[in-house]
């Protein structure tokens, strides 16, 4: 006697999209390390600095010859970045919006939308004509060579002899 056919359609994997409330679409196995906060505290940012918005990391370094501003701006287009130098103040503006293609559903959103405005009062005078900026792999680097008088210069020390006057 043949066995009655079972309805097996339920056992097949569902081709319709998995609903988020089932389980996370991607479950990460490694979420433990978050050194980002510790690294941000160690960044050598300019002393008088006002920062608003955005989660982009910005740091200022002094290599002796020049000041170096480094900003992490992944996925930020060149036309969405502005670097402005006015005497002693450097202003960095950057923005990045998430663009959702038509028909796409946002399942997970961890990447920050950037609306960055950061003004840094430079600790030393710089040569405005010699400032260069470049962007590579989402990292902006601005090099501000120090003005000639701001560079460390070695001061020669004259040897003063101290002789006892003879009577």
């Amino acid at each position: 006697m043949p066995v009655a056919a079972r309805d097996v359609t339920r056992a097949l994997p569902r081709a319709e999209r998995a609903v988020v409330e089932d389980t996370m679409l991607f479950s990460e196995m490694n979420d433990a390390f978050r050194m980002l906060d510790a690294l941000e505290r160690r960044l050598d940012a300019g002393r008088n600095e006002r920062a608003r918005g955005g989660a982009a990391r910005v740091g200022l370094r002094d290599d002796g010859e020049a000041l170096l501003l480094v900003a992490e701006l992944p996925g930020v287009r060149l036309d969405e970045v502005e670097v402005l130098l006015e005497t002693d103040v450097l202003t960095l503006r950057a923005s990045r919006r998430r663009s959702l293609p038509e028909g796409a559903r946002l399942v997970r959103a961890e990447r920050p939308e950037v609306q960055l405005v950061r003004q840094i009062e430079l600790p030393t005078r710089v040569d405005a004509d010699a400032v260069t900026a470049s962007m590579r792999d989402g990292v902006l680097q601005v090099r501000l060579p120090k003005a000639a008088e701001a560079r460390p210069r070695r001061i020669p020390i004259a040897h003063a002899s101290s002789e006892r006057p003879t009577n």
Partner: protein
Amino acid sequence: MQPRTNPESPARTAPRPSDDATPVVTPPIDVLETDDALTVLIDVPGVDADSLELSVAREKLELTAHRRAPLFEPAYRYRRTFQIPREVDADGIDAKLEDGVLTLRFPKRVTPTSRSIRVRTS
């Protein structure tokens, strides 16, 4: 530039400092879904194709990337692993790295929603 994807074992190219000492940072991701694919965007600024490792083994995708970081001390690496859902085809992963953002596209498997079952009659 296409980063290398190598099933079962990661591809190593340039020599790099000791993996143990380098601190690890978890990069943030966005996940988008369409009818035919799952797309993951990962922020990895300072990473080029040579320093990116992507490997797939047993439904798990592993990402490691060493960050070029001359001014941020110490240098660190990005690391994140993902469980690949059964709905997508791990063999069809497309990876693109541009301006410090890695885009991974997983095409969804094409599965029939139903099939006819023939009934035997005696």
